[in-house]
């Protein structure tokens, strides 16, 4: 027996003990069809979005913001609320094809914030699509899809139309949440100006490429509101928030539906829960076309 052969035999035994020999992919069993995924029920990619369209197109919420603006912490907290409560805001969280995508974001919260963009990217993985399956207390089932892209993606949008062209989420989104790091915004005027500058570039490009338009529904979310904890900072935030809001109105052509200041780590925060309730509520059905009720039309015609 040569060394190579012995090594092969050892590998075989190890594989047997680890149970990898004669294995198939768990994702093939059911709805998680991406066999390239590291984990069962991991986050999905944009290209898989149509898999969630069955009898109706689910609500799509896009989280937009640069690195460390708190998007993943935010969505991780929503996920936590849903798994620790039997019923949250009138809905039970009954299933997801992306549980592990959420768990990645929860895990990320335990990581030191310093200079670990690469590590964060590794933990978050490539895919940004997360799904909640919710059942209302009245018994109706609906799905909410959330896109939580890495902040670096939006940094690329500042300078590149090519990157923006690849985005298929924003133009289909029923709600866009634009994130701003409140702590950073209050840090210095220079930081505030940089935030504004970045968003100006991104929104200008998005609008030019038709990814957003005057009909786009959006909210502005100021995260890390707990860090704005002195009177001076609160005053600064109030001024700068108004400027940011105005900037968004000018760039999108519409007013924000809502502006929120949240602390994603405080699950009792009223503003946070209000925003969560908005995200998980089902999409409004398309308005009825009255002519479909032909009997009513006949009756009205003959009155």
């Amino acid at each position: 027996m040569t060394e190579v052969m012995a090594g092969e035999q050892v590998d075989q035994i190890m594989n047997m003990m680890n149970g990898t020999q004669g294995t198939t992919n768990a994702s093939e069993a059911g709805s998680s069809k991406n066999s390239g995924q590291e984990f069962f029920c991991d986050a999905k990619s944009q290209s898989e979005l149509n898999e969630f369209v069955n009898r109706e197109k689910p609500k799509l919420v896009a989280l937009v913001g640069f690195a460390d603006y708190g998007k993943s912490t935010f969505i991780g907290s929503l996920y936590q609320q849903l798994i620790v409560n039997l019923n949250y805001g009138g809905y039970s969280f009954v299933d997801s094809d992306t549980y592990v995508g959420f768990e990645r974001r929860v895990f990320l919260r335990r990581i030191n914030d310093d200079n670990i963009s690469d590590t964060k990217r590794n933990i978050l993985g490539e895919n940004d699509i997360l799904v909640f399956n919710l059942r209302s207390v009245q018994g109706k089932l609906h799905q909410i899809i959330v896109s939580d892209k890495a902040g670096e993606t939006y940094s690329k949008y500042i300078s590149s139309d090519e990157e923006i062209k690849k985005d298929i989420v924003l133009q289909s989104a029923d709600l866009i949440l634009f994130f701003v790091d409140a702590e950073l915004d209050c840090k210095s005027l220079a930081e505030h100006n940089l935030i504004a500058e970045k968003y100006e570039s991104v929104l200008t490009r998005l609008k030019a490429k038709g990814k957003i338009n005057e009909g786009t529904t959006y909210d502005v979310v100021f995260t890390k509101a707990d860090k704005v904890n002195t009177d001076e900072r609160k005053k600064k935030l109030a001024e700068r928030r108004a400027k940011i809001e105005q900037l968004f109105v000018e760039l999108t052509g519409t007013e924000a539906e809502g502006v929120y200041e949240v602390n994603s780590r405080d699950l009792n925060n009223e503003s946070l829960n209000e925003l969560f309730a908005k995200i998980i509520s089902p999409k409004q059905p398309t308005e009825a076309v009255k002519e479909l009720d032909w009997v009513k039309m006949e009756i009205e015609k003959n009155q």
Partner: protein
Amino acid sequence: MDKTNILLAGLPAAGKSTYITALWAVEKDGKSGHMLTCDGLPSESSYIDGMRDNWMVMKEVRRTAFAEPMEIDLPMKSSRTGEKIILSLPDFKGEIYQKILDNSVTEDVKEWCEKSGGILFMLYLGNESPEMLQEQVSEMTEPKVEVEKVVMSTNNISAAIQNVLLLKYLYEEMDDVPIAICFSSWDKVDNSGDKSVEEWVKENHPCIYNYVEEHFSTYRFYGISAQGADYDDLDEEGGDELAVKTTEKKRAFIYTDKVSFDITEPIDFLMLG
């Protein structure tokens, strides 16, 4: 005689092997008067006899070391219907189920999923509660791990969700079969107020409750203590007490809304509904 295949599923340390051991130890002589009792001896019982010996002397049951499951066939008789069956349970290593979460499924698991008519799902979550998770979120200011060592693995997924993922896989593979969800080491669980297990699950593990309730039309929750007590806490007197209970077949127990020493109840439920 008909073979009844029941998939015994659960992550590592869920208590699968201990349950089988206790079942064998209690029902072997066929005299328990429980819903199911052994009706004779299997042709080969060295594996389960070895585990039973440890159980008898309050030593931890040695978990199966092999990737392939030990198939345990027990000739049983139902006291409800008089029917005689061969109860067939696989004793899989827990890591085999955990591998499913890594997107790696063995052919043995697939085969058992295909041929089983019910699931006996074991899980151990200790006294972890939703409130504790909420506190963890708000208290998280200091980093818990060194940056350099960080790699996401299955173990970083919360224990409750790992179990939901396994339930999801089994549901998608086996469709809507009857399922008995058994929380092991029930003797250690804090159930002050003596809530029913179902109420306890709703309160403490709502994500598991919601998943099960949504997908399985025939389900029941159980608390199970196959050991009867925590061996680490046992002194000589405690040990003797447990030995007496063993003889009286009042050591291992299940809990639904009351204690029962008939640990065949979950299997009886899976077979007869």
